[in-house]
């Protein structure tokens, strides 16, 4: 009964892992019948190239900014939603909605909004006498733009998980603290936040892992990849772009995989010791 699924997982999940390592040792153009073995040559080439610094920096900046942005904003939204006014459930669903939408569709919508001349953002800025930044031409601004949209799309996920965390805090303890004269800010800083430790850790890891895999939004909003070449984008461009360097692309995929699996192992090893307060 389980066999078809297991065969599929083996063929399309496990097999590629091994094949990637093998391909990464080849100098091989995609579709070509011949390949030469270069050992670790592709890795050496990647890490000694100018591109490596840019790619790794871009990946790190994108990950840190999107994770930080969606977690901080997510927590703020969760705090706003953690009230007993009617309509909270509608807002909760609403803020989660962008998370389930097509990254391609969302990317197109925001490209139009960000357009430096005809976009609604430029229009609003003009109203205040300011000029729109040239989002599409400057690599740094392109990255800022993509990060902004990614945070917009993902903060609802953090908000909903944080909200569930907030609602599971022990109400009697919080009330006792309030009776003892602890203000809202103190209760949040000294009680809620530490008690939310496990939730924060859960979100930290899941959002880092998914931001390292972000592709559709980045690809659509910056088709030339200027300023936004993260590891995954670089692997795509090298393998399936003009050059079709399959071996080189596989090597970058292996680097990405090692990064992802390391994070996963760190989380498994650390979580139970480090984050439990309650």
């Amino acid at each position, binding site marked *: *009964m*389980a066999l078809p*699924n297991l065969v*599929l*997982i*083996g063929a*399309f*999940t*496990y097999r*590629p*892992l091994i*094949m990637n390592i093998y*391909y990464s040792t080849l100098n091989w153009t995609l579709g070509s019948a011949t390949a030469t073995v270069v050992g670790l040559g592709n890795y050496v080439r990647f890490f000694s190239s100018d591109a490596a610094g840019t790619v790794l920096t871009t990946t790190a900046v994108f990950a840190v900014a999107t994770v930080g942005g969606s977690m901080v904003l997510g927590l703020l939204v969760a705090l*706003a*939603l953690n*009230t*007993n*006014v009617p309509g909270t459930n509608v807002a909760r669903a*609403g803020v989660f*909605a*962008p998370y*389930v*939408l*097509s*990254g*391609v*569709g*969302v990317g*197109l*919508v925001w490209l*139009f*909004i960000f*357009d430096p*001349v*005809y976009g*609604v953002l430029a229009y609003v800025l003009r109203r205040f006498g300011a000029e729109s930044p040239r989002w599409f031409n400057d690599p740094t601004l392109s990255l800022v733009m993509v990060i902004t949209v990614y945070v917009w799309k993902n903060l609802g*996920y953090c908000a*909903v*998980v944080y909200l*569930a965390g907030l609602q*599971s805090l022990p109400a009697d303890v919080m009330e006792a603290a309030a009776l003892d004269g602890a203000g809202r800010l103190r209760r949040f800083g000294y009680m809620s936040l530490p008690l939310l430790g496990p*939730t924060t850790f859960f979100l930290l*890891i*899941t959002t880092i*892992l*998914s931001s390292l*895999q972000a592709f*559709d939004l980045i*690809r*659509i909003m910056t088709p030339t990849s200027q300023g936004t070449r993260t590891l995954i984008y670089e*692997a795509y461009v090298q393998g*399936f772009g003009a050059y079709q360097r*399959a071996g080189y692309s*596989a090597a970058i*995929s292996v680097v*990405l*995989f090692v990064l*992802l699996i390391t994070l*996963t192992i760190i989380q*498994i090893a650390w979580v139970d010791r480090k984050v439990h307060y309650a």
Partner: protein
Amino acid sequence: MSLLTLKRSVEASPVSLSTGATPRRRRPRLSTVLGGYLPLVAIVLLVALPLLWMVLSSFKQVSEIITLNLHALPRHWSLVNYTEAFRTAPFGRFFLNSVLVTVVGATLKVLLAIHTAYALVFVRFPAKNVIFVAVLVALMVPPQVAILPNYVLVAGMNGLNTYWGIIVPSLGTAFGTFLLRQAFRSLPMSMLEAAEVDGAGHLARLWRMVVPTTAPSITTVALVTIVSEWNEYIWPLIITTDPNLMTLPVGLTLLQNNESGPAGYGVMMAGAVIVILPVLVVFAFLQRYIVAGLTAGSVSN
């Protein structure tokens, strides 16, 4: 995605199926209502305005899009962007392809997950724990790093520009298997043992007892799978070069290339509406299942 992620979420269960309706202790005062509403309204607007702008713009003519004098509402509601989208690219085909890939792919994936989970919980066979761990570890493998080898394999079997080439590589499902295994394990063993004594085979027990009693979990897995199949991008992008086989997200990339320049924004908004709206409608009605599924596994493959 990850072992711990799932373990943690199942233990702590960040969002339960019964959704987060907080019990109301006392009637809110007017000031609380106003103070509480302001942030709520701001949050909803933050999400809704960009999407509203998409919908409104999709009904505007070019002259109302390429202008420095923007108006929120179209002066003449026009379908020209939609007809243009269907004219410059086979949008009807994109839509049908997406529907086909989503329906067939999601159905097969859910069936595979149900059967695998059943076997892992109720069938005695050797090396079961090893197999379960193998499924768990597969959750940690990001699909993106498997793209190139899968492309080489599928292209080598003449799977380029075929439906099976789009659908098959993502069929193996660790997420659904894991979530359903959790659900199936909560069923009372005695119930199934009684059925076994009565002579019901595995398939009968699965479909007459297990599936009906775990319908909410199966719905959750099905909806999450449907949404992720519909939105899937990188694999169909690589495996299709023929517009007749492209799904909506891939077709939108084509549209973006064809309609470059500000004049194309209207058409692109129409395209975005077509890919976004169906998911938004499904989400509006069934959000509690989707939110529960996505926050439980926090992974979509």
